């Protein structure tokens, strides 16, 4: 059954039999056959010798090499790749996300998810390899802000909570939320559960998680000086945060 696979597939296209392959993301099984459920390149992941016996067939959401546009604006041919595919990435358990803090309360902080880093880019920080929607500058430029919904863009973003006990791994009982996050901070977090109808739950209890960007009281961008402090380069004042370890 393992005859030639098509290089690309469209939804509803038959790819192979479940006798030869395991069905991966972007496919579904119908009457012992694997069908594509999205349009994209067909990829075969070789079987892992210990755990699997069959290769996995998947249809990729990613398209190679669309993300570079805009990275180098000097090449003003930038608007060349016009109709840009924008691929959807939903937050899932273990997804790494970047989120903006919208509210800080005694027991939790509410954040609005700006970017879901997909596994490929999370595992491999080399930006040139990541090619999801979220790494596609052109799509961000076109999809961004419309004048009207400045106030309610948060309604279009997935909301999440960082509970007090999920802020850090040590000294959990001494966490004071105000000293961890401020409204407006950009936080790198990991999804621990899909939560209830309105909120995902995030954790920052890892060295590489926490605040990645923050402005001081004076409004200047701060730089991290330790795992729990950032400093305003202009005023020299330090502020407390749960700081993510810079790469």
């Amino acid at each position, binding site marked *: 059954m393992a005859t030639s696979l098509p290089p690309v597939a*469209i939804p509803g296209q038959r790819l192979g039999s479940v006798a030869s392959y395991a069905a991966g993301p972007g496919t579904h099984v119908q009457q012992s056959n694997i069908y594509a459920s999205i349009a994209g390149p067909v990829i075969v992941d070789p079987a892992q010798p210990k755990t699997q016996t069959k290769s996995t067939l998947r249809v990729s*959401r990613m398209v190679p090499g669309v993300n570079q546009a805009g990275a180098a604006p000097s090449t003003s041919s930038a608007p060349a790749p016009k109709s840009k*595919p924008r691929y959807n990435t939903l937050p899932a358990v273990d997804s790494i996300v970047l989120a903006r803090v919208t509210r800080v309360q005694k027991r939790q902080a509410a954040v609005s998810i700006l970017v879901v880093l997909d596994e490929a880019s999370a595992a491999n920080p080399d930006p040139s390899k990541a090619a999801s929607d979220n790494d596609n500058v052109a799509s961000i430029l076109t999809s961004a802000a419309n004048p009207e919904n400045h106030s309610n863009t948060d309604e279009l973003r997935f909301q999440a909570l960082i509970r007090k006990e999920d802020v850090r791994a040590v000294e959990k009982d001494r966490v004071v939320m105000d000293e961890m996050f401020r409204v407006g901070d950009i936080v790198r977090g990991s999804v621990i559960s899909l939560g209830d*109808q309105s909120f995902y739950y995030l954790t920052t209890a890892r060295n590489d998680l926490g605040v990645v960007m923050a402005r001081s009281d004076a409004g200047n961008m701060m730089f991290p000086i330790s795992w729990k402090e950032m400093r305003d380069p202009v005023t020299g004042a330090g502020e407390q945060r749960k700081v993510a370890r810079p790469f």
Partner: protein
Amino acid sequence: MMADRRRVNGPSGGTRPAVFASLAESGTGVSERAQRQRQPSELRKIFLKTGLIPTASGSSYLEFEPSASLAAARINPKSLIPPSSALKLACTVHGPKPLPRSAAFSPNLVLTTHVKYAPFAARKRRGHIRDASERDLGVHLETALRGAIIAERWPKSGLDITITILEAEDDRWWADAPDSHDASWGMMNVLAGCITAASAAIADAHIDCLDLVAGGVAALVSDEEKQSSAAPKLMLDADPAEHRSIVSACVVAYMPARDEITELWLKGDSSKASLENGDKRSVHEALLDGAVDAARGAHTVLAEAVRESLLKTVG
């Protein structure tokens, strides 16, 4: 009626559409109903392109080929009254996005469909507020798509599908008076177009689907002056402006890979009609088979459009 203060309103006394002399006193100008130039099973060409609206997660634009008479009228315009019209619509998909705060937890993708005619889309000026027929179209479209989308892959999120109809299909030839079993036949063609276009836009948004679902229409038409004398004929993708009377029509949303119908809408009275040439099928069966054939035709175009935009991005 209260004036809507959020819109620019016309004269408070209302206005009337133009009345043409050739309609009032017959005999002048072009008053021949156009004849169908296609074979009974021949479909109009469909123009379909995805990804034209970059602010959306997915989008498509669809156009039906103008009928022979409309094409002729475009090239050599004589009358201000168009002989027929051909569907033009734009579809966008937004999402998956968070459900509204008030919504209950949903383990699946929640689909919202919305169909709206532009005020200038049809022979009669349309209102700005969605009317019953537009709501109807939305419901039928949602059913058609819900059967094709793998909703459990997108928990607690919503998908908005919006269709703007820039040019609709006529319900009948302009000079024909509505007859006893008249219905908004043009709507059937509009729905078929909506299904095909929405399916393309969903594929463009990379939402998981069982198959590309395509819309198709078949109709039972009677072109004879006397209704009872001859058996009505089965026509695929009928343009209502080209027929004296439509007895019954059927739209399906169809997935060829699984041979499944996700939506079926049959209108008109076909109980008394019988098919010609000793066709043994019941009228319903014939209509259904015809609509599925039409949908297969549309699916070819749909698959081509999706593949084309995919190849463009993959390079």
